[in-house]
């Protein structure tokens, strides 16, 4: 098995296990898509659609983490993107004008890209640690979003085509899934079919050596934070369009942590270097499926965080080759001196 597939094996197994649990709880309808009103629906398609914002942010986060960075500000940038678009649209008489929606979306994306580039500049040129540089906007960003919305929740008319970004469908497939898929393909092509991916991993592995080898590591760092900010802004637009409103306080709250979790579940190490885009995708779907699983098997809300922790714990342990070796030790031939019984210490979850 090639190492790439091996990395993906454990997350895929966990995802399959989750899907089996859901099918057992609610029947085969869970996985089979249905069509209503010309839009693909059903439980699993809904999970994919709702996971689209997290997917975008996690993909951006994967690139940032590959450079040994981290971006904590994505949740706040999500809120800013959503706030800009909604505030601009509700300010106009005709909320359905194509030009207005186009410029609202464009403005939101430009501002969030600039915010991302600013994060990257602080990291690359001012030498501020990524966790500190992005923490500033994580805290201040929601304040900025509140200033944009004036502390209110702007509500876009349901008739505005803007909401189609979150609710519409193209060829029966929901628009958010299209957007997430297109961004995934674009990032995958850019990083795997050009030298960019190699340069990224090189910068993450050793920025100084990369610089000496002639790679413009600073420019690459700014670029990945810019892409991450752009992804967060796009995620905010999908979220805002889905609800037809922008909540500066709660929109995309804690999404940065879910995104980091998805990246890690997908097999990308926080130490930088090698990254696994497909792993991140599976990580996102695992997280999205988990929330539904808790409802489907009838656990109460209090279980939500505990259940999440248990699954993440399981993935992390299964990915550790030390742990697997330790667990499998008694079953391997050639036992040395009486091996200590591991059963009592093994948290088998």
């Amino acid at each position, binding site marked *: 098995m090639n190492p790439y597939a091996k990395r993906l094996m454990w997350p895929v197994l966990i995802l399959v296990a989750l899907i089996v649990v859901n099918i057992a709880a609610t029947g085969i309808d869970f996985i089979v898509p249905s069509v209503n009103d010309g839009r693909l629906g059903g*439980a699993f398609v809904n999970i994919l659609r709702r996971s689209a914002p997290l997917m975008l942010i996690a993909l951006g986060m994967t690139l940032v983490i590959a450079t040994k960075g981290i971006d904590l500000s994505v949740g706040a940038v999500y809120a800013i993107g959503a706030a800009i678009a909604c505030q601009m649209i509700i300010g106009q008489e005709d909320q359905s004008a194509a030009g207005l929606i186009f410029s609202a979306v464009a403005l939101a994306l430009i501002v969030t890209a600039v915010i991302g580039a600013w994060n990257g500049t602080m990291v690359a040129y001012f030498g501020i640690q990524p966790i500190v540089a992005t923490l500033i906007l994580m805290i201040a960003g929601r304040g900025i979003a509140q200033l944009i919305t004036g502390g209110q929740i702007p509500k876009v008319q349901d008739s505005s085509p803007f909401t189609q970004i979150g609710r519409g469908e193209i060829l029966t497939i929901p628009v958010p899934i299209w957007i997430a898929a297109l961004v995934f393909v674009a990032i995958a092509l850019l990083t795997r079919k050009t030298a960019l991916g190699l340069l990224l991993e090189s910068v993450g592995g050793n920025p100084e050596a990369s610089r000496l080898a002639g790679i413009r590591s600073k420019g690459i760092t700014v670029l990945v934070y810019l892409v991450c900010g752009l992804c967060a802004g796009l995620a905010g637009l999908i979220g805002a369009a889905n609800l037809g409103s922008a909540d500066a306080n709660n929109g995309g709250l804690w999404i940065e942590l879910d995104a980091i979790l998805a990246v890690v579940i997908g097999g990308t190490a926080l130490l930088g270097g090698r990254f696994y885009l497909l792993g991140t995708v599976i990580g996102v779907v695992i997280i999205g499926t988990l929330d539904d699983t808790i409802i489907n098997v009838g656990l109460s809300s209090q279980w939500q965080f505990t259940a999440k922790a248990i699954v993440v714990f399981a993935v992390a342990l299964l990915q550790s080759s030390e742990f697997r070796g330790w667990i499998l030790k008694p079953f391997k031939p050639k036992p040395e001196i009486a091996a200590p019984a591991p059963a009592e210490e093994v948290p088998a979850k």
Partner: protein
Amino acid sequence: MFKKALAGIGAGALLFGLAACGGGDGGSDGGDDGSLVIGFAQVGAESAWRTANSKSVQDAAEAAGHTLKFNDAQQDQEKQIEAVRGFINQQVDVIVLAPVVETGWTDVLQEAEDAGIPVVLADRGVEAADEDLYVTRLGSDFAEEGRKAGAWAAETFAADADGTKILELQGTTGSAPANDRKSGFFEVLDAEGLNYEIVDSQSGNFTAEEGKAVMETFITTHGLDGIDLLYAHNDEMGLGAIQAIEEAGKVPGQDIQIIIVDGSKAGFQAGVDGKVNYIVECNPAFGPQLMEVVEAVAAGETPEKFTPVEEGVFDATQFEAELPNRQF
């Protein structure tokens, strides 16, 4: 250098502030006409509800002819403690405090008591150990809100022979409004002997985003056929759920009846559109009532330890008339 300049500016501002306080008509002792100087330490401006609350208190103080010293703590307890100390130094007549958190108030409340300034809590409470250090708390009775919703449900579905099937969207897990709105609701259903079944009950975290997501999952898991009632612990979750119901091709308010708590403009608009059947108010506009309590306290009266805010309930016949009165 920079620090010194900052300190200088700070000192200057302080002096100016003192001068401004001393320069008024008779200072902070209040006039002989019964007007009071009230210090109000507000949580912040974190939600539309809070903004409406601040405005209501400011308007009511002005209407009653009192001087209100308003402090916005931006959700920071340190700033709030400083604000209360400031009010003590200025010898205001009554301090109104909407504490950010429940703990850590003993010292500063003791200082207020030593200075002989009564403290009234607004909206949120402090931990029970500090109960002797304030006069009364004026706030919403969340359990009563739940009971009001329950009373309407019990009456509306009393004739439902095959049992009332209920979906519930709870607020943030473990928060007081979520706990009390749930327990109050089911307390009444049980007391009235309604034949009901909780089909599912999950947290939507008081947000439209999660309310919609959870409702979508409810719909794919349980379907909507036969579901009689959705009880959402706040407007935002209810509005999110309404979108999910509409996207599933059902008619909110008809195929499934909906109760929401809060009563924002957007909630009432949904009511006018026929998508919500019953609204229980969680009232931020308690400024006038607060002024009555403050005046009573300043006159030396001791009201009950807890004064519930006056809150209404609204059904389909009242939405349209009430909508223009909504302040948030």
